[in-house]
């Protein structure tokens, strides 16, 4: 019910020309599912950390744009969307049993933005190893899918003396400028791993919460678990290297004007050229 009211408010705000924060972060577009049957094991995860992306209510996962998982292994870390993984696994099973051969919108990823709302942060899988982080991006157009590498960790952190309890941990604040935005992060020494959500890492302890100073994107830890499970990644047999700049450019275009970028026509055959405001996480 609450979700519905929020959706109505957002819709009304959009109609009135208002630009709400949520609208700048995601657009509606369906991305084909990825079969989870074909994978390789790359490490064994021993710690698993769950992060909410832009939670309205931290106790309700359906109020998140996404729910994401950091897996920490002996020499790798993996960061991916739980909602997308859940949807991919449901669709894989549905495909395998092929009960009806029909597509059900119930199998699309969950999340506040509704089924199938697109956000590049949801559809990317990040694997860090040997001082670099590799982003496998999944896009609305297959030709823009590939992988690109960046150094990891890549933030120049400044420690502050601010401390606070965040998600049940004693945390200290650190700040950085990264990919064109200023970020504030809260890390804890109580979990002795140097990683965090998305491309963040390099602080002396787990990053429990991190957000940009405009508060457009907030990653907040919801669970920390000790696990012992294989860390796997898809085989990505057709993936080729792609430039990060190319991906960012395509993502900006597809978010700002999906109709023109991927070719969506209305009932009368006219190309939809409506544009939307977009505030990417990475400005540069």
């Amino acid at each position, binding site marked *: 019910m609450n979700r519905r009211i929020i959706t109505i408010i957002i819709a009304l705000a959009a109609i009135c020309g208002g630009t709400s924060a949520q609208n700048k972060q995601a657009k509606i577009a369906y991305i084909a599912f990825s079969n989870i049957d074909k994978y390789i094991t790359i490490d064994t995860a*021993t710690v698993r950390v769950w992060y909410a992306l832009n939670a309205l209510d931290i106790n*309700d996962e359906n109020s998140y744009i996404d729910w994401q998982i950091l897996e920490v292994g002996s020499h790798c870390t993996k960061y991916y969307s739980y909602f997308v993984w859940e949807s991919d696994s449901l669709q894989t099973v549905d495909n395998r049993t092929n009960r009806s051969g029909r597509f059900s919108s119930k199998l699309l990823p969950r999340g506040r933005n509704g089924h199938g709302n697109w956000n590049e942060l949801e559809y990317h899988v990040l694997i860090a190893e040997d001082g670099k982080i590799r982003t496998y991006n999944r896009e609305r157009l297959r030709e823009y899918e590939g992988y690109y590498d960046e150094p990891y960790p890549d933030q120049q952190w400044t420690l*502050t003396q601010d401390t606070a309890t965040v998600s049940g941990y004693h945390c*200290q604040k650190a700040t950085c400028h990264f990919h064109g935005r200023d970020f504030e992060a809260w890390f804890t020494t109580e*979990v*002795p791993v*140097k990683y965090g959500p998305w491309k963040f890492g390099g602080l*002396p302890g787990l990053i429990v919460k991190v957000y940009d100073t405009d508060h457009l994107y907030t990653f907040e830890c919801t*669970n920390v678990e000790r696990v012992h499970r294989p860390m796997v990644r898809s085989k990505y047999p057709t993936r080729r290297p792609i430039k990060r700049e190319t991906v960012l450019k395509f993502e900006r275009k597809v978010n700002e004007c999906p109709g023109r970028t991927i070719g969506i026509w209305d009932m009368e055959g006219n190309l939809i050229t409506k544009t939307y405001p977009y505030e990417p996480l990475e400005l540069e």
Partner: protein
Amino acid sequence: MYKRLITTILALAALTANAQTVIEGTVTDSLGHGVDAYVTVAPKGTGYILGFADTDAKGYYKLSFKSTADTLVVTAAGLSVGNVSRIVANKSQRLNIRANQRAIQLKEVSVRAQKIRQNGDTLNYLVGAYQQQGDRVIGDVLKRMPGIEVSQSGGIKYNGKSIKKFYVEEMDLLQGRYGLATNNINASDVATVQVLENHQPVKMLQGKELTDDVAINLKLKDSAKGTVAVNTMLGGGIQWAGGWHIGSRPLDDGQIVIGQNPLWTAEVVGMYFAKRRQNMTLYKGNNTGDDVSKELTQHYSSINSVSLYPFCPTGTVMPSGSGLPQKRTFDNHSHILTMNHLEKPNKDTELGLNIAYYNDRIRREGNSVGDQFISDDSRLLTSETMTSETKVNNLNVQARYNWNAQNGFLANVLKFDTNWNSDRVDGLLSSERTGTAPVNYGNNRVRQHFDRPQLSVSNTFNTIRNIGKNTFDLHFSAGYFHRPNTLTVGIDSLLQGTQTAYTQDVNSHHIAGRFNTSYGIRVADVFRFNYGISASANLHGIVTDLDGFTPPAGNNQLSNDLWYNTYCLALGQSYKYETPDLDITLGLPLELYTQTLDDKIRKNKHGYTHLLFFPSLSMNWSITRDLWFNAGASYSKTVGDPGGIYSGYIMSNYRAFQRSYVEQLSETKNYGANVGLRYRSAIRALFANVGFNYRRTHDNQIYGYNYVGATSVVQAVNQPTTASSYSVSGEASKGFDFLHSTIRVFGGYGLSESERLISQSLYQYRAHNIRFGGALSFSPFEWLGVVYTSGFSQSFSYTEGHRDEAVRVKSNTKRLSMSVYPTKTLTLTLAAEDNYNNLTAENRHAWFGDATAKLKLKHIDLELQLNNLFDQRQYTRVNYSGLDIYTQTSQLRPRNIIGTIRFKLL
């Protein structure tokens, strides 16, 4: 792994003047090898880090920072070493840290208390999140889980639906007797309770044939798997009254107190759960009123066996239940012994053996007042004071073979049941007729003895195969049931000084067989057509003989000797449209139904053949991921039943004599419709359902009542009658993280319309019933748990035009239970209960109080129960049945104290 050195300095004005400190060294393990870690430095006594550095491949690190602090804390940290700290002076120095490699304890957190996690059709309830101190077995915790309801009988419902399977580690060891699991498996041995929605137990039909059945699976902790556990409990106690006697009491020992001293209770429970073998063997016994036989209740049958129902309409009049928990009224000597074993030679095959034996002597004391409708201006009042003793000996054996693979299914179940039970009742009956012509029928001393042994054996075979996209199902079941029963009654009329004795013999056999096969065809992925042929035969041999009864003039037949057989050949056809969100099923079975009656006394042979049609339509629509709508409608017609074909009188009980045969068979048409809405959200821990039911039956016969004194003589009469009922009910439960609370509300309303024929006058009547209530459990403090439940019901019925005179029976039950945890090992529970009804002359509020103290020590658990604190000795309950009101007063077990000790033998 390439390591980069990152050193960050705080740009604080106060610190800028200070010189830079450099601390460098190595972090190594006990063998001197470099460790993958990072090193932080913090001023001692503060919570913040000044700087940090990674170690390189050799374990070398270098920290440079500025600080005015005198003393610093240097910490080496990493997943393999945890946190190793050294306190050093604030000066440049070399500091080598040796850290032992170990698996560190991580502080795990969950901001979102994910008490319930949903994974497709599976809901995972974390047992630890719902378990409270004092909860011993998994059944205690199940009651707290939102959406799961455990009834007094031990049956489990999930969101209003009875569960169809209960697994422990995905194996159905107990074959429906899941009370054994919920009452004996320790809560601390279970990791999660899984609710499996849309559960299809046959592997090869998974994803092919949708079901909306619900199952429960207990996932055990690793520590509970593969080990033999034997738990023992011994206990004893005393009660405030009832005398001392070892062994069971004679029926007439002159005492009316329930129970006797000394009280004793004992149990031994052995369990073994492994991947390929499971076993659960236990003994339980007591005389404390604890009905351990409830654990043997079979809540579902693993295979659809032929139903066996030998005809026997005879029974005793006994003190009926008080409606209170059995513990308060039960005077027992119970023993149960059961062995359940399952072998899994490979991943698809299961062999199972289940043996259960139940022995009991149950004594009841009570008074029953009947206020029966005879006509609009006259009623029959009866009062019976009775003491009864029931001896129970039940043995049930089931052997099972199951092959459940992706490419096929085969099951065979052999069942054997035997009971040798008997009832003895001593009572005093007084009766009178009130109204325009009042008559007092005086007092009668009544002795009843009913010997009711029975024996049954059945075998069921089922196989399912895939033929291309289609499935073939073959099912065969056959069984035999025998009941040679005798009821003897002696009545001394104290008013007339006469003696009467009745003897009713009933020797009843039932042989039944059923064969059915079905073939499912899949069309265009969304349609599934099922066609089947089934054949069944039911042979009832009935020999009865009544002695001592003088029937009304004209019908003097007092015995029956007949075979009543039915044969049915049916063509089943169902048409199903199914998508993941919607399925609609139309059932159109046709039956050729033949009955033969061979009455050897009347030398009368009859055969009847009917073509019957049972259309039904049902729909399930999943509106969203969490919301479902269902609707259905059906029509059926039944012709004849063994209860309607005997022409000689049979004593139903000492006050009712019945003959049912009229020149034609009974015909009943049934119409039904239902709609319902169900909601469940694991995230919100919110579960709700609401439903509406309509039922209408049309009979070509009605039973006509005539009263001779307090005795009713009942005969079937050829006169059509119609009855209908409407009911609406709903319930909802929600779990909150706030105060660990769970709230549950329920409500319902029912209306039924029916007819009764008494002394050739037909009365139409309506009965209303309304009930609602709720339960709330919460923990305001860590040391306190509170559960409050309340329920209200009202019922009344009246004949046409007499609504205003109708007597309304209202009852209300409130129960408050508080558990206090003064220490981690001690649990004190206090419960108070008020049972109210508006019709009892005195004692309308019956208050009960109970207290329990549980102490958990390292190797033993001690428990002390103080029951019936207010020492209530009697309880009166009023209930409606049609137009009649019955008031039952039961004797209760007096205040008693029981101490138990529980320990692990293995």
